[in-house]
């Protein structure tokens, strides 16, 4: 048996198996649950990196369940795939890398952060299931399976958001709200799956893409999928669950939830590009996505400025940053049917948007971890009650500065590189959009100056005289994310050339996506 052929499924299976082992191990030793989770996620991370290298050198990979060979997409005599499969191209593995890195460092941070709570074994089990759901959403080549993984991720998220709910009311309320909006989205996704299956008798993405006609039913399916996936990604005006959920979830979970939202964003892009592509009215759908992006950018940042809870403030910034991704990719979609404009600036706009997904996962993850560190030591998220914490938490202060500079798009950090790609390319599509994006960046900086001043600057306050730096595992997770941010900022060309550009091209080139499964059909 060649192990390398089974890497795609092992990336999902290992955390899934660990998720069920953790509660059993927890019966014997509570401490071991965190170590087992970290171990399982580290193996997943290594396998994801190995798979990324393979995909970027050899090409897209498929993994067919139950076939005599994992790459046998079409059994002899059949012209369409009948088995469930994973289909992983440059875009899927790009997202997979984000999930693997964020989940791994989330688990490391949790080792100290979550120690004081009851039900640690359940926490780790759910964290692993959330990771499984995210990997599944990103790797699956089957639209019904996408729904299943979406549900796994949503249910695990609900429980994790409510994790502190035993002692406080707000986390339970936030979990309930997320459960409600997730149920609506799941229902609509399932309805869209039903529409595809009813029309084409197919559930495989590539097979549906090869037959899609953009009929009235296809339009209805698209009209159901766009808003619910945008909602799961936190786009305005359906973003209202994000400040509730992001602020009440434990900090490492908030970081992973950001990556989970991006998995929904990935699904939105996968559907409009790989499933519909130029069969749809690209200009109209492109503008729908651009408008979502504009609203998210502007309303997200202006709402952030008036927040007093540090995590709610950061949650609104997450909404705002999602706007940049929607704007960049939306512009690419709007000019998809225009090869000249696509080459001139459409691809660059998409590269900016897609690169921003990875950058955002890293710096927003870091910022949520710094907020978690402040909460861990001070017991409050209220910025009005904080002050002078830089005197006691020097490492956290440095990590916060790095994260804040990156999200505000200050050079030489990674946020600047992706935003620059967006500004310069979107300007050629419509200058006003680019100007709004720049204004939003300035407001983002203003907002984080407020946080920095309120929480870290000022004289030592007597109520915080016992405060000290957070434990080493938390510092380590924040330090590594900071290093990634700096590295991406110094060498953005390496990331764009080797990861982002192939991801963008795999979205644009629908024939390559369908050809991976259907061969020369």
């Amino acid at each position, binding site marked *: 048996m060649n192990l390398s052929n089974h890497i795609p499924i092992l990336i999902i299976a290992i955390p899934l198996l660990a998720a069920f082992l953790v509660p059993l191990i927890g019966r014997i030793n509570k401490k071991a649950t965190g170590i087992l989770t970290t171990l399982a996620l580290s193996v997943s991370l290594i396998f994801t990196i190995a798979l990324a290298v393979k995909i970027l050198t050899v090409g897209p990979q498929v993994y067919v369940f139950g076939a005599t060979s994992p790459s046998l997409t079409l059994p002899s005599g059949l012209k369409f795939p009948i088995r469930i499969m994973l289909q992983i191209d440059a875009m899927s593995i790009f997202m997979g890398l984000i999930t693997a890195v964020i989940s791994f460092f989330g688990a490391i941070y949790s080792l100290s952060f979550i120690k004081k709570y009851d039900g640690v074994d359940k926490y780790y089990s759910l964290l692993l299931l959330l990771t499984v759901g995210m990997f599944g959403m990103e790797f699956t080549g089957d639209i019904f399976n996408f729904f299943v993984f979406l549900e796994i991720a949503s249910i695990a998220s609900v429980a994790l958001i409510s994790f502190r709910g035993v002692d406080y009311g707000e986390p339970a309320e936030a979990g309930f709200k997320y459960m409600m909006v997730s149920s609506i989205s799941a229902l609509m996704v399932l309805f869209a799956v039903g529409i595809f299956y009813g029309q084409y008798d197919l559930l495989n993405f590539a097979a549906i893409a090869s037959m899609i006609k953009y009929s009235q039913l296809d339009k209805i399916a698209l009209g159901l999928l766009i808003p619910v996936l945008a909602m799961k990604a936190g786009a305005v005006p359906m973003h209202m669950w994000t400040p509730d959920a992001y602020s009440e979830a434990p900090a490492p979970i908030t970081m992973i939830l950001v990556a989970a939202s991006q998995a929904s964003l990935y699904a939105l892009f996968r559907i409009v590009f790989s499933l519909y592509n130029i069969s749809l009215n690209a200009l109209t759908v492109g503008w729908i996505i651009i408008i979502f992006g504009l609203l998210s950018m502007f309303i997200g940042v202006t709402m952030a400025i008036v927040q007093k809870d540090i995590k709610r403030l950061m949650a609104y910034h997450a909404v705002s940053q999602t706007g940049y991704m929607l704007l960049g990719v939306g512009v690419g979609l709007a000019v998809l049917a225009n090869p000249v404009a696509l080459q001139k600036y459409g691809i660059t706009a998409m590269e900016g948007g897609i690169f921003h997904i990875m950058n955002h996962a890293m710096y927003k993850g870091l910022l949520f971890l710094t907020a978690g560190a402040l909460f861990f030591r001070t017991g409050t998220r209220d910025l009005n009650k*904080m002050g002078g914490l830089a005197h006691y938490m020097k490492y956290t202060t440095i990590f916060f500065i790095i994260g804040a500079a990156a999200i505000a798009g200050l*050079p030489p950090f990674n946020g600047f590189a992706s935003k620059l*790609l967006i500004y310069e390319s979107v300007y050629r599509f419509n200058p006003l959009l680019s100007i709004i994006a720049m204004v939003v960046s300035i407001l983002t900086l203003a907002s984080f100056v407020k946080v920095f001043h309120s929480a870290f600057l000022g004289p030592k306050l007597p109520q915080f005289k016992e405060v000290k730096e957070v434990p080493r595992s938390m510092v380590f997770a924040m330090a590594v994310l900071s290093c990634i941010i700096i590295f991406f900022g110094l060498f953005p060309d390496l990331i764009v050339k080797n990861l982002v550009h192939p991801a963008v091209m795999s979205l644009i080139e629908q024939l390559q996506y369908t050809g991976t499964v259907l061969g020369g059909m």
Partner: protein
Amino acid sequence: MLGLLETGSGFWSAIIWIVLVLVIGSIVIYIRNKGEDSYKKNTEQDKPFISGNPEESKESSHLSANHIYWGFTEALKGYYNPLVKMHTGNINDYSSWIIMLTVIILIVIGVSG
């Protein structure tokens, strides 16, 4: 060149930017270190200028988050009042937004062809 990002309209290099910052920073530090002839240490010049008001103790001088950008939000009251009101925290409203947007998108996609 390593670190050179092509943007379609130009390029960006963080390495060149850092080198430039170091060069300009060195010039600024050099000029600053030359000093100001009229400055006298341990005089009134050392005290912060706060419009003639007495200086508060350090502990009570920290500006809390509530007060930062007060002028900005006050000036934009007309924008903020409805926007903040829109964020009710009520799950019924969350669901309504999703349904409303779905209907709008269905109509736009249906009409646009």
